[in-house]
């Protein structure tokens, strides 16, 4: 793989992606880029197919192809179990999706934090959720950027340096968000998702063929690395570690605002269904491809210095034709970008809608949008700064973000299912749990032998329920919120004509 091949491929990718981003402005109605819901939610008119691909691209970041393959390489099949439990957690969308969608439509919410603030009748709740999201998601974005840096550096043997890769990804992410807000982000996401699923499946196929086929691969693993096929196996996936990894990721679809905000966007519940099922099919294939990459690397290159090198080594190996290797490499870079630009947009909408507009009352929609657009590059630059610190172990850091975001989960579930939940309960739960998780990570991440990933949801639930029971709920907003859901969701389609 030569340096010129790499740079030319990046250039071609950029031209195509920018073309798609610019085209995405075409379909938008007048004013789509002038209002908050136009810019950040695509006017709540996104179709199911694009939503599914974009949901997948946003969720499956560089972590998947570099981190999950690496995790499989280091710890074996437990990595698959971890990912499948996350995947099952996305079923929460089947239950909460229509509810988010209904209240979003009724009350015009732009962000999930705005929804919580309204439901609990408290600006402080909206502000706390927004700020906690920034605290955890900016390092998470940094991890994605670092992933790109490692990948480009590893695969080119250092010809493209870590810093070049990181800066490149940041600049592209800012660009994609600016062209047409969420529209350009979702369309470029879709391009990335399609390219990636095809190319990465092809790589898995070629590599497994190169290693003598599926059964030969698993025979090699069974004889030479039998521990890689069981849990706890080599010990990386002890039951406690497994719990600590999986519990936060199980709640990902609710706890991470860059995906829960997507629940406001589909044009109809039918589109939401397409988004969910499309994502699940995509995710299932992608999960297996990543795990098989990790297994293949383990069979072919058992003595790598670091597990994160599994993917770059595989792509640079003789099994993969250089052009395909470069396509996948760019796909992984695009995967990181598609995650970061969505996070940037979501955080920017939260900062302007729930922090700025709450501190400074009566600001116009136009002004909020201006502030949001200003915040996008600020967040990107902060992530760039963290990435340059070159923190190790991609997977573990991503999970630190998820453990922290679990702080929102009881308040979100309570918003829909527990009328007795109060603003004070939500506030103490979000702030207290965030602080608790940060403290856990600062002090070695173990309390009574359990990690923050396990404690987070316990502490958040105890605080939410405990403090709510000691305070009074705001019944009027709770009633309005819950009756809006039942009213909206009871609307039935008129009977269909048979030939439709």
């Amino acid at each position, binding site marked *: 793989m030569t340096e010129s091949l790499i740079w030319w491929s990046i250039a071609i990718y950029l031209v195509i992606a920018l073309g798609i981003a610019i085209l995405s402005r075409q379909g938008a109605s007048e004013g789509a880029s002038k209002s908050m819901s136009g810019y950040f939610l695509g006017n709540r008119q996104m179709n199911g197919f694009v939503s599914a691909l974009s949901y997948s691209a946003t969720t499956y970041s560089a972590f998947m192809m570099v981190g999950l393959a690496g995790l499989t390489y280091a710890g074996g099949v437990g990595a698959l179990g971890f990912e*499948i439990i996350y995947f099952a957690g996305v079923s929460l969308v089947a239950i909460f999706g229509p509810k988010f969608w209904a209240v979003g439509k009724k009350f015009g919410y732009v962000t999930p934090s705005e929804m919580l603030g309204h439901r609990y009748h408290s600006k402080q709740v909206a502000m706390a959720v927004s700020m906690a999201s920034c605290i955890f998601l900016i390092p998470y974005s940094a991890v994605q950027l670092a992933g790109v840096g490692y990948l480009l550096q590893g695969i080119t043997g250092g010809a493209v340096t870590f810093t070049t890769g990181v800066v490149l990804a940041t600049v592209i992410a800012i660009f994609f968000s600016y062209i047409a807000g969420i529209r350009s982000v979702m369309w470029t996401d879709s391009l990335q998702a399609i390219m990636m699923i095809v190319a990465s499946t092809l790589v898995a196929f070629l590599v497994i063929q190169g290693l003598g086929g599926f*059964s030969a691969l*698993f025979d090699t693993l069974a004889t030479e690395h039998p521990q890689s*096929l069981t849990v706890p196996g080599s010990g990386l996936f002890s039951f406690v570690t497994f719990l600590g990894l999986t519990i936060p990721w199980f709640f990902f679809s609710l706890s991470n605002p860059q995906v829960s905000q997507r629940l406001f966007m589909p044009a109809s519940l039918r589109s939401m269904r397409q988004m969910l099922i499309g994502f699940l099919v995509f995710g*299932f294939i992608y999960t297996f491809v990543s795990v098989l990459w990790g297994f293949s690397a383990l069979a072919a290159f058992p003595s790598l210095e670091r597990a994160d090198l599994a993917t770059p080594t595989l792509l640079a190996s003789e099994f993969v034709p250089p052009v395909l290797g470069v396509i996948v490499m760019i796909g992984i870079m695009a995967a990181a970008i598609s995650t970061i630009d969505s996070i940037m947009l979501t955080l920017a909408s939260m900062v302007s809608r729930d922090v700025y507009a709450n501190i400074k009352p009566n600001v116009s929609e136009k002004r909020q949008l201006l502030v949001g657009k200003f915040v996008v590059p600020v967040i990107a630059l902060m992530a760039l700064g963290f990435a340059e610190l070159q923190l190790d172990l991609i997977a573990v850091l991503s999970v630190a973000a998820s453990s922290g975001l679990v702080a929102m989960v009881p308040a979100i579930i309570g918003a829909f299912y527990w009328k007795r939940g109060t603003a004070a309960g939500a506030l103490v739960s979000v702030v207290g749990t965030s602080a608790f998780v940060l403290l856990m990570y600062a002090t070695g991440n173990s309390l009574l032998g359990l990690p923050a990933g396990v404690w987070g949801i316990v502490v958040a639930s105890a605080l939410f329920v405990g403090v709510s029971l000691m305070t009074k709920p705001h019944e009027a907003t709770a009633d309005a919120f819950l009756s809006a859901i039942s009213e909206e969701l009871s609307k039935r389609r008129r009977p269909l004509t048979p030939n439709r």
Partner: protein
Amino acid sequence: MKRSKWIWLVWLVVLLCYLVPYTLLSDVARWYGSFLFWACAGLAVIALNVFITKDFEEHSDD
């Protein structure tokens, strides 16, 4: 029974995803051990979601 109640079956699958590989399959170092189990669990989750969200099609768009 409302379709959304079937979500409990998904949560049961999740529970089995913790229990089975760490007990029954912890000595089966073959592709048909935990690897196959989690693969089937993933497919079951997809099938259940297709079923649970079927009602979404009937919801009025306007």
